[in-house]
């Protein structure tokens, strides 16, 4: 599959879609995730990016290079770039219930402001660094609860981290247990979609 087809897939994602993405470098990650968020912003949705592989400022800079008017989008509340310590692992603790509540609150806020929906993405690297991979897997299973709301989600995994976890078994388990999986390689990629 060519990269353009991957980009077409993320542009066409619908509310309640939950996709797990495996990427191998930052360039691919930026291109796919920013395309996905921009498609939502262009149709009147709000967007959120939880950063943990890079800092929020690095993400903002990369978004500007991609062509997003970050300052304007943030000013009118259409875009939020959030540090993982303020969203996932707060005060050294990760709570699935609280994280799901945060998503719900964010959704309610953007809808109250008049946005048509919400597209979110979260980098998962912090769970690997903090040795909270089991919690992450549990969270992935629970995420469908907030996806009853009109929001779409892409969870971004660095393939290099996942491939080394449990001798590669984690990657296989995640692929098997999720109906929407996207793997992006340097020369293309594949999409497993229900």
């Amino acid at each position, binding site marked *: 599959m060519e990269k353009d087809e991957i980009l077409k897939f993320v542009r066409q994602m619908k509310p309640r879609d939950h996709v797990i993405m495996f990427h191998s470098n930052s360039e691919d990650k930026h291109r796919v995730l920013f395309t996905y968020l921009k498609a939502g912003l262009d149709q009147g949705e709000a967007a959120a990016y939880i950063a943990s592989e890079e800092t929020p400022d690095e993400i903002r800079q990369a978004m500007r290079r991609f062509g997003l008017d970050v300052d304007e989008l943030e000013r009118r509340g259409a875009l939020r770039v959030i540090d993982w310590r303020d969203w996932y692992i707060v005060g050294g603790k990760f709570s699935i219930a609280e994280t799901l509540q945060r998503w719900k609150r964010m959704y309610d806020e953007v809808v109250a402001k008049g946005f048509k929906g919400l597209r979110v993405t979260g980098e998962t690297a912090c769970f690997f660094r903090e040795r909270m991979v089991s919690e992450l897997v549990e969270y992935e299973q629970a995420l469908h609860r907030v996806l009853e709301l009109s929001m779409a989600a892409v969870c971004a995994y660095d393939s290099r981290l996942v*491939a080394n976890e449990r001798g*590669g078994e984690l990657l296989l388990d995640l692929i098997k247990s999720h109906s929407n999986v996207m793997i992006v390689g340097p020369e293309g990629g*594949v999409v*497993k979609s229900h």
Partner: protein
Amino acid sequence: MSTSLSSQREALVQATDYGLMVLGETVRGTIYQCIESKYQLKREEIPEKLPTFHKALEGLLGASARVIERQIAKNLYATLGLNFTPRKDWTIVEYFDHAKKAKGGI
């Protein structure tokens, strides 16, 4: 017991079929189509052009390719009746070479 090189090659093609099934039948078909159009490599030619297959998988799947290759190798070893030990730095090329030697195919 030694096995012929042709049966080892057949076993590798089957192991590849099973290994790629983790991604589902549609994705497996996409991968075969893609490696044929981009790398001129047909499914049946994978054993003869294994380095090309490895390169194609890495191009498509990045770091995830290593895990899929390990899965293919695991299936291959099971079919050939060999004990499988995962090796961190081995690709499908090294696994197949090792299996061939172990079965006396070269």
